């Protein structure tokens, strides 16, 4: 087929002036503000710890927290706690991600499965599942299994539910377009439903991740020999505020970093949802 181009009429290909390059501060405005805010609060923390609340049983300056973390590191304890918690979290959250996505997807495409599971999902999601932690300790003893089970249970529901709603929310016009081209059900699932739901699934992972981190601490509060939750509990019992804050800060940092990474992934997966708006 030879086709005549209509580019000329449409003016495609005309040279455009380069967009004005925004300055460094303009481009990174939000980040600079966030960073400034963190610096100010940390400085306040240090000052309050030094001059306002001087009772070390209640509060410590930020510098003492860092010093304590350094100490723990030198003794090899911090590494152990981080490694233990990380392993529990990786196993629990990993299992939650796999099972949540698989179950959510299966429920979205199989009506009967959904009908059977719906009441249990609603029931377990509404239950404050951390309340089951002591029960899991009884069932699985004090080993890693009980922690993995707690983390799995608290983080699976947002993942499952987001997968379910994401797939169900697939634009029916897109499904019809795929059908019109002769796509088979598996192709519609893989090429239309899944990509359409992916950003929503990633949001579910982000929510599950936050709950999973809480799960780590709670699981370790009941019978653990190591881990960041254990460090926090133990430090509280021995009135070691600096070590306690060290544990909390590391958990917070892990939460922020992983959730920001997933947010970035959401943007990459669905750029059309984040069309830039002037503010």
């Amino acid at each position, binding site marked *: 087929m030879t*086709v005549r181009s209509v580019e000329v009429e449409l003016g495609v290909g005309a040279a455009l002036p380069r967009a004005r390059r925004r300055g460094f501060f303009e481009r990174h405005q939000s980040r600079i503000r966030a960073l400034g805010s963190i610096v100010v609060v940390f400085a306040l923390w240090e000052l309050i710890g030094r001059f306002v609340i001087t009772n070390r049983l209640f509060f410590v300056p930020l510098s003492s927290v860092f010093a304590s973390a350094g100490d723990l590191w030198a003794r090899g304890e911090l590494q152990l706690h981080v490694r233990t918690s990380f392993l529990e979290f990786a196993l629990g959250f990993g299992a939650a991600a796999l099972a949540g996505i698989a179950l959510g997807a299966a429920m979205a495409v199989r009506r009967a499965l959904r009908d059977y599971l719906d009441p249990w999902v609603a029931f377990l999601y509404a239950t404050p599942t951390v309340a089951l932690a002591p029960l899991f300790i009884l069932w699985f003893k004090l080993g890693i299994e009980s922690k993995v089970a707690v983390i799995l249970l608290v983080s699976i529901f947002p993942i499952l539910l987001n997968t379910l709603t994401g797939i169900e929310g697939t634009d029916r016009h897109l499904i*019809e*377009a795929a059908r019109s*081209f002769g796509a088979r059900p598996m192709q519609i699932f893989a090429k239309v439903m899944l*990509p359409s739901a992916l950003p929503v699934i990633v949001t579910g992972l982000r929510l599950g991740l936050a709950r999973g981190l809480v799960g780590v601490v709670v699981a370790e509060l009941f019978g653990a020999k190591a881990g960041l939750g254990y460090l926090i509990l133990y430090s509280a019992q021995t009135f070691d505020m600096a070590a306690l804050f060290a544990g909390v800060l590391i958990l917070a940092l892990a939460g922020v970093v992983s959730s920001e990474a997933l947010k970035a992934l959401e943007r990459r997966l669905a750029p*059309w949802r984040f069309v830039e708006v002037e503010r």
Partner: protein
Amino acid sequence: MTAKLELRGVSKWFETRSGDVVEALRGVTFDVHAGEFVSVVGASGCGKTTLLRLVDGLLAPSRGEVLLDGRPIAGPGLDRALVFQLDALFPWRTVLDNVLFGLEVQGRLGEEARRAAGELLRFVGLGGFERAYPHELSGGMRQRTNLARALAVDPEVLLMDEPFASLDAQTREIMQAELLRIWNARRKTVLFITHQIDEAIYLSDRVVVLTRRPGQVGDVLAVDLPRPRRLDVKRTPAFGALVDRVWKRIETEVRESVGVPA
């Protein structure tokens, strides 16, 4: 001439969620010959899109039958492609990958297919936008991508639901002429839906006029203007007479459907 496509007493009704029944089409009978270009015009809501979805096999008729090459249509097939009224592009795919979608699910993706898709995109004026995403395009550009996606599978029967509706007048005229060229070069059968009477007449061998809902065939008129048609055929008296005839036939319908009496 043999009938490529036959509609025999086709009725379609929908049950709405509230339990009401909406009758979209009633006893529609007409045929489209192989290689023929047939347009369907009618007031908004008279069932034109429903008609195309029936022919594409996305819907089954409530009564009557739709035949392709003499056999009832059982579902969507490789021999037909539908250009959707609302451009149903996949937002996570680039323009090129959207155009290749049909070939991909049909397992016909190859170097040749990619090259042809690139050429199609240039034809619809989207050369250079292969890697753009739908949200980066204008409404008219999206609609042209939508058109290229259907042309890419090279179907025998092209079903087009107001494909040029969101284009400006000039682009629309160029696209009309190009569509006629493709149709003529590849001997495709086209069932074309439009709101615009002059578009229907300029493009078609025959024009089917549907009444307002439930859509019934109100008139079928043959357009005996010689081909190939140049754009200035639109300013001839013969063309004007045909436009008048169709307009008279649907004027009352349109007036009634929007509640403005003559």
